[in-house]
Every structure is written in structure tokens, then in C-alpha cells.
């Protein structure tokens, strides 16, 4: 006798169960692409809710002193305001914490990791990385699972997120939930978005519009690396067909190997992925090393063209701005700020009691 009928029946049941799970609604404006979602980790409301709790959960660090949110604060568009990240044991990272808004669209993750394309995989770096220690969970995966299992809150959240699992308390289920929540941190409600997607002419003032012209000009060249709806050339979305593969040397002083730390190719030294400029007003300090404190200084860096390097991006070659133009450019950059993102209760810390 064949097992096939039973198997098909079981598969159907699982499918029906999965289909029955409410999926996350993007609520994006028309024309704003949806981010890619891996087929093996469908974005359900229950999984996102579990992920939100895990994201803000201090038990997710070895010494229970930090959560993901420690370095990715909602009020700062999920960045941390520090020059470089500081882990749960006090160890300093060599690089600046990136804002997580729209990370779901990032072609590759972290500042320069060419093979890291999945959020499910990426979350393992802060959890288990040892150089530097971030959340400090290396060697403590069993303890992590035990800590979560011990809390009734998580028994309910895991069961709701993974109703088909006999035991959902696994590392894979934790990373899937975390990735699902992080995937929903999408910024699309800035004045710029109202101007572009809702055709609200009043959303941008004259200074911001002049700044936008400068930003997208061949004179300044900003848009070559910070292009498209996400203001980064390393962007993918649900319907992308071309892979974005860009990493750039922005003319900062040498030090960090950048992409070459992984590829070991001399031509990759000092090359980094261009981050999205959305919410850039909130994500200071700037650059991979956090070495530039303000937007004004970032613009000054690109005006000067930065330090000479044989690998420097051909688009970083300096330009001249009047004081008024500089103010306009910065006004435009600030029009990419999405204040609703920083107050969205769907993205907020679930452990903070509402006043």
C-alpha cells in the first residue's frame, strides 16, 4: 500500500492551516513596491507579533542586558545614535549600527556582506557573533530556548505563530519570527512619499524641491548610489529581476577593509553597501564607521570629494555648493523622514505599558 494518499492529505491540511493564517498587510501607497518575502517564511500576523516581542526581548542576550532594540531604537528609525555599536558585554563594534527601516529591500545585509541576502540568516550575526560580541548568545542556544519556553507569554505567541509545530521552540522558528518582524519595518510615509506617491504638491516646500533637483543632478551625483524608491542602489523588491551588487569606496580615510574583509580581493578594500537615505535625519552619526556626526558634515565630505583612493567611486569627486544650495539639499534629505514610522504602534516595544 502506498503512503501517498495520506501524505497528500497531510500536505493539504498543512496548506489549509497555513492559508488560514492571516498574512501581514503592507498598506503601502500605490506604486510603492512590496519587499520580497521568502517562500519558506510566509509573513503572517502571528509571526510578526512574535517577532516584535523577540526584537524587544532582553532575554535574547546572553546576560539579559540587551535586545535587538538596544541598537535599533524606533525613535531613531531603528538606529542607535552611537558612533559605533556597543554590544551586551560592552564590547565596541568597528562599525556604525544601521537604521533598519526598509532593510527588507536591502540586496545584501550589513555594511559589506556579499553573500548575506536573507534576514533569517542575518539575525544570527548579532545573536551569535563573537568578534565583536553583540547579543552574546554563542554557545547558549539551548539556554535561549529554555528562557523563552519558561515564559507563558511565549508559549502563546509561539503556538499562535507556528500552530503546525509539535514544538515551535527552535532556533529556526526564532530567526523566522525575528526576520518577519524586521521585514515589516517599512518606511513609506515621509513628506517625499506624499509628494511622489500621493501627488500632494504641498508635501514638499520650495527649498525641499530645489534640494531634490540638486540631489538628482549630475552635478552632485548623489543619486547614482542612493537611487530609486529606497535611495540605495543595493535594493531589491518583490518583483525585482536584476540583482543589485554595488559596493562603493566613499573616500573615507583607510582603515576598515570593507568588502575585502570577506572577498579578500584588493579591489574591494574600503567598499561598502550604500545605505538607504530614508530617515537619514534620524540616523546620525553617519558612514560605516560613524565618523561623520551631522548631515551638514556628510555633505561637506562629498563636496570635498573625500580622501584619494584608487578604488574610490567615480561619483565621489567633489562639487561646489552655495550656502543656500547646501541648505536646500539638507532640507530635501530631511523630507525623507517618516515620523509615523517612529510612532507606529505596530513596531513599538510591546513591553512598555501604555500611559
Amino acid at each position, binding site marked *: 500500500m502506498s503512503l501517498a494518499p495520506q501524505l497528500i492529505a497531510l500536505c493539504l491540511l498543512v496548506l489549509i492551516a497555513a492559508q488560514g493564517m492571516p498574512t501581514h498587510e503592507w498598506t503601502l501607497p500605490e506604486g510603492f513596491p512590496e519587499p520580497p518575502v521568502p517562500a519558506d517564511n510566509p509573513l503572517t500576523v502571528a509571526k510578526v507579533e512574535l517577532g516584535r516581542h523577540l526584537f524587544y526581548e532582553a532575554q535574547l542576550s546572553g546576560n539579559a542586558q540587551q535586545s535587538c532594540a538596544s541598537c535599533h531604537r524606533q525613535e531613531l528609525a531603528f538606529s542607535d545614535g552611537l558612533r559605533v555599536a556597543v554590544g551586551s558585554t560592552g564590547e565596541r563594534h568597528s562599525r556604525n549600527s544601521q537604521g533598519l527601516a526598509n532593510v527588507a529591500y536591502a540586496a545584501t545585509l550589513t555594511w559589506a556582506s556579499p553573500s548575506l541576502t536573507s534576514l533569517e540568516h542575518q539575525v544570527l550575526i548579532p545573536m551569535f557573533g563573537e568578534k565583536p560580541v553583540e547579543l552574546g548568545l*554563542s554557545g547558549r542556544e539551548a539556554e535561549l530556548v529554555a528562557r523563552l519556553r519558561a515564559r507563558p507569554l511565549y508559549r502563546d505567541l509561539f503556538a499562535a505563530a507556528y500552530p503546525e509545530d509539535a514544538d515551535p521552540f527552535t532556533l529556526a522558528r526564532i530567526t523566522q519570527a525575528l526576520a518577519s518582524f524586521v521585514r515589516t519595518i517599512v518606511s513609506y510615509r515621509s513628506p517625499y512619499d506624499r509628494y511622489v506617491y500621493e501627488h500632494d504638491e504641498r508635501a514638499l516646500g520650495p527649498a525641499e524641491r530645489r534640494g531634490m533637483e540638486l540631489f538628482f543632478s549630475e552635478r552632485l551625483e548623489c543619486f547614482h548610489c542612493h537611487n530609486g524608491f529606497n535611495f540605495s542602489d543595493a535594493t531589491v523588491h518583490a518583483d525585482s529581476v536584476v540583482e543589485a551588487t554595488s559596493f562603493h569606496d566613499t573616500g573615507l580615510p583607510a582603515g576598515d577593509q570593507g568588502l575585502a574583509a570577506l572577498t579578500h580581493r584588493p579591489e574591494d578594500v574600503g567598499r561598502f553597501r550604500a545605505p538607504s537615505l530614508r530617515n537619514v535625519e534620524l540616523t546620525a552619526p553617519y558612514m560605516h564607521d560613524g565618523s561623520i556626526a551631522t548631515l551638514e558634515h556628510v555633505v561637506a565630505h562629498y563636496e570635498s570629494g573625500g580622501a584619494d583612493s584608487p578604488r574610490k567611486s567615480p561619483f565621489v569627486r567633489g562639487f561646489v555648493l552655495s550656502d543656500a544650495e547646501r541648505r536646500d539639499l539638507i532640507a530635501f534629505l530631511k523630507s525623507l523622514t517618516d515620523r509615523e514610522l517612529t510612532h507606529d504602534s505596530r513596531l513599538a516595544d510591546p513591553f512598555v505599558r501604555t500611559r
Partner: protein
Amino acid sequence: MRVVVVLCWLWWSGCAPEATFTLPFRALVGGRSFGCDTIYEGLGASKSAARFEDLRLYVSRLRLVRPDGSEQPLALVPDGAFQGGSTALLDFEDRRGSCAGTRATHETIHGRAPAGQYTGLRFDVGVPFEQNHGDPARALAPLDVSSMFWVWRHGYKFMRVELRSERERRPLVVHLGSTGCSGDGAVVGPPARCTRPNRAPVDLRFVPDRDAIALELSPLLASFTLEGESASDGCEASPDDPDCAPVFTALGLSRAPQQVFAAVPR
């Protein structure tokens, strides 16, 4: 004629009784048994005293070698923890003293192969390419051990040797694994190849039931300065790290034969 030979071989190999082989590994530091509690003197170029904090490594693709040089793959007995598929995790640290890993150890590999005469043993230090670059959160034992995850390099640490000097309390970390990994046709994407796979092949004259495999750490550590102003913090397998060159050499990843593993009488 060829058909007859093949049929005979199939009949013979199909009927040859399976036997269990135990391969005991002995970790040594300058000839002394490895232990988490032990202070070892004279380590590295600086001749420093140090205590170990970790010693774990993956070995894979184990093959017994017949007198005619042909290989018989050893089927690892899965145990849900240290052995699974073609990969085993050797774990010499027992969480005592200076070590902070797992209480359980795994120093003897159990495998099955047809009974017969074998005079050699071959294996790789490392995780096979096919298993090395997947999602570790979903991996099965022995690839589910987070201390061996090497996520920033999109793979596993093949070998994890950690120690701390006694006088200056300086840590020294040797992590070996594949580097220079990139996607297919482009730089981006899950690794399709690595410029430095760093899977160290080991080929020993070895008689099962008579021999054990010694893993001598001193050649790995011989060139490191553990203390003082020029102290090294170790090697993370970067091909351009001068501290790594002697590690690669000791493991036979340069042209010279490996100096770490040897067959010794039990």
C-alpha cells in the same frame, strides 16, 4: 568478464559483514594530554604559559584505506549530537576550569564499514561545501552548535582553538574555515565557491583497533606571540593575516605536509 567481476564484487561487498569502527582521537599539547584545567608552559614563539578555553573541530568524509590504496567510506553512526551525515564534531573541552563550552565531549568517532583489512585513514578537517553555507538555524546535528557558527563568513568554523596566557591574561583565538566565498556568477548571493576552502586533508597510515589519532596542538601555535607588546590575538583564517600563514602550514594547507595529526598506538 567485466560483468562477472562487477557481479562478484557486488555480491562480495553486499555480503561482507559490516563492522563498527571506533576512531579514538587524543588531543595533545606538546605531548601532554589536553585538558581545560591544565596550565601548559612554553607555548608559542613567546614560550608563554597558558590555559585552553576551547578545542573543537569538525572532521568529515572519513575513509578507511585498504592495502591496495582504495578507499572505503566510513558511515558515521548518527547520535543526534556529535555525528550526522558525513560530518562529526570532535569536542575536547568539557566546560571545566577555563573552558566555557559544553559539558559533553566527543573524542571517539563511531562509524560502520565492511569488515576487512585496512591500513590507512583519510579525512578532512572541516565541513563539506554542500553543508557549509546553509542556514545554521535549520541545520541538524552536529551543525547546530552555535559556537561553531561563523555567520559573518557565511559558514562554520572548522576548528576552534582558544587559549589565554597566564601572565597577561591575553586571549588567543584560532578559528579556521572557508574564506573568500562568493556567489555564482556574481559577488552577491549564497556562496557558490570559496577562493580558500581551507578544508585540511589528512592521510594517515592507520590500523583500526590498534591505533588512535593524535591531534598535537603545538605546531599550530608554534609561531604565535602570546604576550608582550607584539602579542597576537590569533588567526581568523584571513589569507592576508601573517599570523595565519603558520597555521595553514601546520595543517597542510600550504605545500608542506600537515604536522598536527598522527597515528599513535592506543
